């Protein structure tokens, strides 16, 4: 409970679950949810290094806040793209979005 490696393994496992979900899903919203899981794995890593190794225990917290801000921006953009795509092709299955396939 109080060691660096246990937190790092938790973060790595969250990241791996996110990668599994990202490759397995075919709806855009499901992939977005998997990406949020991966971002959280990265946040857990930053906070663990901040708690156990860093010279200044503020910097990791600031990084985590920035990750949250980037995640919020990314979610807004992704959801608007999903809505536009749904209005265009009446589906959120990514395999039907093949307009730009060439």
């Amino acid at each position, binding site marked *: 409970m109080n060691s660096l490696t246990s937190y790092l393994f938790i973060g790595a496992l*969250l990241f791996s679950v996110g990668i599994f979900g990202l490759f397995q899903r075919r709806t855009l*919203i499901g992939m977005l*949810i998997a990406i949020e899981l991966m971002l959280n794995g990265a946040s857990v890593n930053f906070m663990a290094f901040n708690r156990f190794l860093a010279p200044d*225990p503020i910097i990791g917290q600031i990084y985590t*806040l920035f990750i*949250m801000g980037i995640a919020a921006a990314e979610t807004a953009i992704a959801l608007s793209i999903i809505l536009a795509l749904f209005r265009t092709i009446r589906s959120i299955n990514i395999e039907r979005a093949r307009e730009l396939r060439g």
Partner: protein
Amino acid sequence: MNPLQNLVPPENLAQIGFAAVVTVTFMGALIAVLPRNILYNVLGLALSLVGVAGLFLYLGSPFIALMEILIYVGAICISIVFAIMLSRPLHLSLPKRRLPKVGLALGVGLLVFVILGAIIAKTPWRRAPVRSADWSTATLGNYLLTRYDLVFELISLVLLVAILGAIIISGYARRRPS
């Protein structure tokens, strides 16, 4: 001394709490990935993020834990729910799940976990020789407005551009004439 402390000593209580938080995190992560109903996925994501907020509490920063609940659970999950309701994917036919794809995804996930775990186990982690003991939220705010001011402003700008872009993208999309 309250009866709970008689039953379990406080350090065991902390360990039980940690195990509960980790369990909630991974159950939520599995619910977020496995079921095919997209609404269950969002609720699993919210559960997992609450667990991660508990982990942040154990890592010694209640402010970040509260921000996690506020931003992720309160804003991101709710906006995903809104997107689900607006695009009505629940009424559409769900695509069939193809076993080779799931197997391949499981393989890739396991591979990534094994590589990351090997790196974590092999690296000799060294803590910094001098560590400051200042964890307070006041110092956090101080750093945000002095040393990391530029990044703070840039994040604000990115959020503003993202909001404008979201409005434009979802506002000007029209149904394809076909």
